[in-house]
């Protein structure tokens, strides 16, 4: 009960800071701007194909808005995520250290987990708000076409889990330094690494290909946006999040025994 209270205290504080600083509005603006553009472009392409399909029955049978509009949309939004997440997380712990407020935060009777989960939770909520706005796209689409809402929900779940994983990694990067820029660059580099690590299996590196593929953020994301919820992918994202939050906790603890 007491722990929930301290978790909520940190969560509320972080949300209040997100809402007073410009970073939330700027990242949100560009996330939705880019998302809107891709949705528009994909829909335009889809409608073009629909016209052609009017003359071509075979093509018409392949037309599926989920595959042609939303799957590429989710894929591109994931790239946008890679660029935006470091901006959302860079402040979380680095700024506490730089401004000295860590001295307040760590001398309040808060457990390390309350601090970490409060900060992670706030970032996740902010991201969920961004995602919430994108629901406008399928809603707009459903006005003119049929949508498989179940498959779409699976895509959103994938987006949410991918975002959570990126944010956990970004939080860890922020715990390493007191410089926000360094935190952002570190997060970006690590995210990129987990992104491209799966390319190994495409080049056909013997033996290791499957291993790297299993580590890749994108490979696990792909099944979600195809409308498939696989326990392996769920476990991957949840353990990824736990792993980086755990590393962050270790990093915070080291402050006590170091020096």
């Amino acid at each position, binding site marked *: 009960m007491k722990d929930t209270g301290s978790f909520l*205290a940190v969560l509320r504080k972080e949300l209040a800071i997100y809402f007073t600083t410009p970073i939330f509005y700027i990242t949100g603006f560009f996330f939705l701007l880019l998302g809107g553009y891709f949705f528009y472009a994909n829909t335009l392409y889809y409608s073009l194909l629909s016209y052609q399909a009017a003359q071509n029955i075979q093509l018409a049978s392949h037309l599926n808005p989920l595959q042609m509009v939303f799957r590429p949309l989710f894929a591109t939004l994931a790239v946008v995520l890679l660029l935006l997440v470091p901006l959302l997380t860079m402040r979380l712990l680095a700024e506490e250290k730089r401004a*000295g407020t860590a*001295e*307040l935060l760590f001398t309040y009777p808060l457990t390390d987990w309350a601090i970490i989960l409060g900060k992670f939770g706030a970032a996740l909520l902010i991201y969920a708000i961004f995602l919430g706005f994108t629901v406008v796209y399928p809603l707009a689409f459903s006005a003119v076409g049929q949508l498989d809402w179940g498959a779409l929900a699976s895509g959103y779940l994938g987006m949410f889990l991918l975002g959570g994983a990126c944010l956990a990694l970004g939080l860890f990067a922020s715990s390493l330094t007191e410089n926000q820029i360094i935190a952002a660059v570190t997060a970006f580099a690590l995210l990129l690494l987990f992104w491209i690590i799966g390319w190994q299996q495409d080049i056909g590196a013997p033996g290791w290909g499957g291993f790297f593929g299993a580590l890749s953020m994108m490979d696990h994301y792909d099944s979600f946006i195809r409308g498939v919820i696989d326990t392996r992918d769920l476990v991957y994202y949840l353990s990824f999040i736990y792993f980086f939050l755990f590393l962050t906790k270790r990093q915070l603890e080291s402050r006590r025994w170091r020096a």
Partner: protein
Amino acid sequence: MEMMIEVQDLTKYYGPTLAISRLNFKVAAGEIVGFLGPNAAGKTTTLKILAGFLAPSGGAARINGRDCLTQSLEVRQSLGYLPEAVPLYTDLTVTQFLRFAAQAKGVEAKAETREVERVVAACGLGEVRHKLIAALSKGFRQRVGLAQALINTPPLLILDEPTIGLDPSQIVEIRQLIKELAGAHTVILSSHILPEVSQLCQRVIIINRGQIVASDTAENLSRQLGRGSRVRLTVPGPDAEVAAALRKIPQVQEVAGEGEGRFLVVAANDADVRPQLARLVVERGWDLLELKAQEFTLEEVFLNLVTEEETTEEGS
């Protein structure tokens, strides 16, 4: 007597640099103790360890009988801490920040508003409560820092340089505030301003180069470390002749003429030489305008202690 703070052989290294070395002291519940020392003496380091922000390299610190390192969470529940640089969340308003402090310290939701109101009133923050902390002046920020420390009425207040960087009228206000806190809280505050410590604190711990050099009440320190009593004397007359006559009194160790008939007489072994001085002046037929025992100021005691240490060190 119940002990609020017990510090045993507390040692802290920053890398190879020794910050504090085997500190030992105790603070009883309800006391206001001043931690005095020049810059980089180890004051802040000691307070950070007490507040649970740093781990000691050796020794132990206990607050209310609980270890600052191994029972950190319990210890942190019982203290309010004002760090030296007064770090604050500048992107929050005063009320938002104090609400966070209340929630973080486990104030119940029902009591939260009342508790925030209480510290806002106590620290005179009413007019700025809805402002962003970033927009506040140094004086108000200091008060916000103090306000967050006061939330939930912790039994122990750790205040690191509470009046540094304030203008004189603000200093007076903050000191008044700290004085009012006495009784409800045990207070340990650090300062390098001597009058402040002698005004506020019942007891002074003087620390230099990471070691405690003295610990007592301000008055006792002045008396004990003054080494001999001093008398200020004003006798308008032939300066040289008066000085020579004064030196003839057996217990008088030293006579320093300060011009225009003023003298500073130092007596050996704490002897009170005022009766002899008065008699001498009257017998000689001079006028006695002033005769006053002069105590050593804390400032002099402090300088004595600190420089003495340095000379012994150089000698050895």
